[in-house]
């Protein structure tokens, strides 16, 4: 059961990756569930000795792309009134912290898919450019230009929010 055990150990990272792609906790876990199902079904296609994490990230990312494309892009419009109601009663520092969390989510959500996945893999998951490019099946130059554009957009979004 080493395969399952390895997947189990990967799960926290996969959940984080899924969260940065989908923003919504339930969507993220649905995505993980579909990725695990596909991995278990296609375990014969994983070559022992190669990196399981890259393989799983690739599966997760592919399902995400398919799902988003199939469903049409769903907008997660933040409801600021709800957000304010939720933090009412919190002290000022915690409120600031929560609003910041929402800002990062919102900023990530505003990125086009190809920038979001590049940002997520490199800035959140810590993959090297070479690894991220291989995982996404794109040249390194394409990855870095997506990263530059994604970063600029995030700086803009988060700068405005600050």
């Amino acid at each position: 059961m080493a395969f399952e055990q390895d997947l189990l150990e990967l799960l926290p990272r996969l959940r984080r990756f899924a969260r940065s792609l989908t923003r919504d906790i339930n969507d993220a876990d649905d995505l993980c569930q579909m990725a695990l199902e596909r991995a278990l079904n296609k375990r014969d296609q994983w070559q022992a000795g190669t990196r399981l994490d890259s393989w799983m990230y690739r599966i997760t990312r592919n399902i995400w792309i398919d799902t988003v494309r199939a469903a049409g892009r769903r907008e997660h419009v933040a409801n600021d009134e709800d957000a304010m109601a939720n933090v009412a009663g919190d002290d000022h520092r915690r409120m600031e912290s929560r609003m910041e969390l929402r800002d990062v989510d919102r900023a990530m959500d505003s990125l086009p898919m190809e920038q979001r996945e590049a940002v997520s893999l490199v800035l959140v998951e810590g993959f090297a450019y070479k690894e991220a490019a291989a995982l996404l099946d794109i040249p390194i130059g394409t990855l870095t230009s997506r990263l530059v554009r994604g970063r600029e957009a995030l700086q803009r979004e988060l700068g405005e929010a600050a």
Partner: protein
Amino acid sequence: MTFDQQTIMAYVDGECDAVTTKRIEKAMASDAMLAEQIGRERALREQLASHYAPVISEEIPGRLTAMLTSAAEPNVDHSFTARKADQIHAKRQGRGFGIVQWGAMAATLALGIVVGQYGLGGGSDSPFAQQGGALIASGTLEHALDKQLASAQPDDSDYRIGLTFRAKAGNICRSFTGEAVSGIGCREGENWKMVNTLPGGAQGDYRQASSSALNAIAAEMMTDAPVDADTERTLRDSGWD
């Protein structure tokens, strides 16, 4: 010396070669704007990383871990599948069990197909018997549900036990996969009442389809996560109460 955005980004990401790194660091000492730009990029990286970091220590939902625990995916135990392959093939041939269309299977109950295949005679070859209008486990299936632990599956058993869990009604249910029938049985009195049955499947894809469908159904039925191996043993020893 000026650096383009891509080079600055690569520096922050630790992707610059040693020579460029040295040049940037030298320039930063005298170029406040460059230093500020790099500071902003670093801050963004840290902000993103710290925003998503708490996900790592969150408790993982049971529906995900259940897919990976030893009990949850008996169908991907290829050694088991391989050992059984010849025997299964022979049995399937003998019973004339056709290829089932699996596409729409997950959400439907294929009870009729299975019962039609076996009848309700409760004979030694039948996994089911009828009692008071309910379909209950019989023969080797009943024995497997009664005695078999997911953590210690005998090679010669016709069934593999999957998840054991407490249903919303409060009783214990267990999922199982077999060569020609898979399903979920729930404890009612001294019996295992069949709640869901699906045609089983001997070969990898069918077994996986079957088990994935069962896991999805089980996830809907359970109150909490599936029980662990120790609890499963305790439950068995106390008669699945």
